[in-house]
């Protein structure tokens, strides 16, 4: 995922938490690259829906695009 809006380690924690709450695991968030990767069980959440999680909603600082699904 490409993640926009992260400026510090706190942001990394918030984004990781948000992804976890959304059902993702094996989460890796890079502040430097503005990216995140995670594993999801697509019977629980479709990979493309990760960018619609509350942590990336209009009220939050962060936005995300799911760029690659493997």
């Amino acid at each position, binding site marked *: 995922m490409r993640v926009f809006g992260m*400026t510090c380690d706190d942001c990394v924690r918030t984004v990781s938490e948000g992804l976890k709450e959304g059902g993702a695991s094996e989460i890796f968030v890079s502040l430097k690259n503005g990216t995140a990767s995670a594993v999801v069980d697509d019977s629980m959440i479709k990979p493309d829906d990760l960018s619609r999680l509350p942590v990336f909603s209009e009220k939050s600082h962060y936005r995300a695009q799911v760029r690659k699904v493997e």
Partner: protein
Amino acid sequence: MKNEYDLVILGRGAAAFSAAIKASEITAGQATIAMIGFGPLGGTCVNVGCVPSKYLIEAAKVAHTQSSPRYPGIEPGLLSINFGELMESLRRTVKEERKERYENVIKSYENIDVYDGKAQFVDRDAIIVKNNSNPKKLKGYNFIIATGSSTKIPKIEGLNETGYITSNTVWDLNSLPRTLTILGGGFIGLEIGQSLERLGTKVTIIKEHNTVAPGIEEEIGKTLMEILTSEGIDFRNGKKILRVYSRNGKKVVEMQSNLGKEEVEADEILVSSGRMPNVADLDLEKAGVKYSENGISVDETMKTSNPLIYAAGDVVDQKYRLETLAASEGSIAASNIYESNEKRINLQLVPWAVFTEPQFASVGLTESQYNATGRKSTTRVVPLELVPKARILKEYHGSFKIVVDSETEKIVGVHALSPYAAEFIIEGVYAIKYGLTFRDLIENSHIFPTVAEGIKLTSQSFTRDLSRMSCCME
């Protein structure tokens, strides 16, 4: 500069700027953005469109008021016009506006790289930027195509050889043409035509149709044409142009109508026969983007047939070509790229105007457009002379028309030909957006005396005889 961007925007006009800025705001300045185009920053509106045309219109209005004062006791003054100086000041204003609204603004966004050149797709995720130096390939994840539109030059024998000006070059004039032939009766030709006529040019407008400004309510269009005729513009309707040629330093247009052949001779020809979207050189097939000669096809979210590519502004296949719409669509495209709650454009709510004097402004559907949807409409037309402020202004020519759904009484179209129409049409936008009926408009006081009161009077005319009402009644 980079070779790869989060967002590549083709164009540097209103749609492109609005998209780039919105994308930067949403992503806290972290989206890497390339913006590609040629010519002065800001595109059509600021450089050769809205700004210079409205400047000329306002200047010409001052000249007209001076030469034809409306009030008894005020005699016409001796009009002295230095056209060269006026045009110099127009170009200065354009330069200042461009600096203020575009050049300085873009400097404050570190994440946006501005490229000079023409862009062409080479793949679904890559373009090539061509300018005088080496072509550069840029990759992007998302794209927004905002390449605008250009004047359509009709294929007429002898036109290129004889020479002409367009709305791109008219602003470079330094001396006023004594006579001008305008090809086309769209809003650009009307605005420039009336302005130059008021400054002293003898203007002839040649057009195929019997109405002016496509999309305008027919009876209102006819009134506008009558007003412009009374100011001295010579309309030649229903003419097909056969050829253009030079004779003794003049430019001659030969045309055909039912009555036979006729000619108009002038110092200059202004081609103003519509606009065409700039799609031809983009190699859109390589990007999987569907388009036609009318523009790029998009859905209401501004997405093209390639889900990662959006389009905005004049290049889109849609009924309006407006600065405000371009900016709004650019912003919607950027929002939809980065945000999950989809924003949609609703063309029914887009107001548009012709800045002649009087102005024409409109929102929603005309009577015939609404009837074509299969629903029944009821309409009222109120002549401008019934509006007290218009009588005070001594402006008697114009009208208001409101179209409502016959069953629900909800307003579906508001059209006005009057002074300041462009300033108050927003009332019609809200009326349609919030599903108001003509009764809702009556219930709210309008300031007396204003021309905008015409909207209320037209609403009242659905149920009342206006001649039996006293001032400002609800």
